[in-house]
């Protein structure tokens, strides 16, 4: 479900034989899941907006 979580231990253990699966499969699933929700929501696909933290307000 999280490629990064699979990449870390795979590299450090030296066992890379199953890694491709845990990179490719989540990409397919995540793309399908995102498209499915956009279909249900009924809006065009667009990336999520990331808002930088307002440091002045936080301080």
């Amino acid at each position, binding site marked *: 479900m999280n490629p990064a*979580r699979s990449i870390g231990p795979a590299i450090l253990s030296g066992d890379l034989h*199953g890694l491709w699966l845990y990179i490719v499969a989540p990409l397919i699933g995540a793309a399908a*899941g995102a498209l499915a929700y956009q279909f249900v929501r009924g809006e065009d696909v667009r990336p999520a907006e990331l808002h930088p933290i307002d440091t002045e307000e936080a301080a």
Partner: protein
Amino acid sequence: MDARPCLLGAQITGALIAAGLIRASLGNDAHVGATLPSGSQAQSFVWEPVLTFFLMFVIMAVATDTRAVGEAAAIAIGGTSVWMRCSVARSAARR
């Protein structure tokens, strides 16, 4: 600025540090917690996208939809992750 490369880098860096910590303290045991198919690769290739589908669906619903209660996102996403671990991971281990 596009934050995506930073998010990607931070995730992988964190995973490498965590795996390095495990290997340094416990040795190269149990593949340092690496995700490996418990059945065949084909089985994992079927279930992995299914699980990620539900996870991404919930993330889109609670974290990107303006109608959703943003504060509930962590509970919904965490709950989805726990539910998938309990259902699919456990039934795979039971075989």
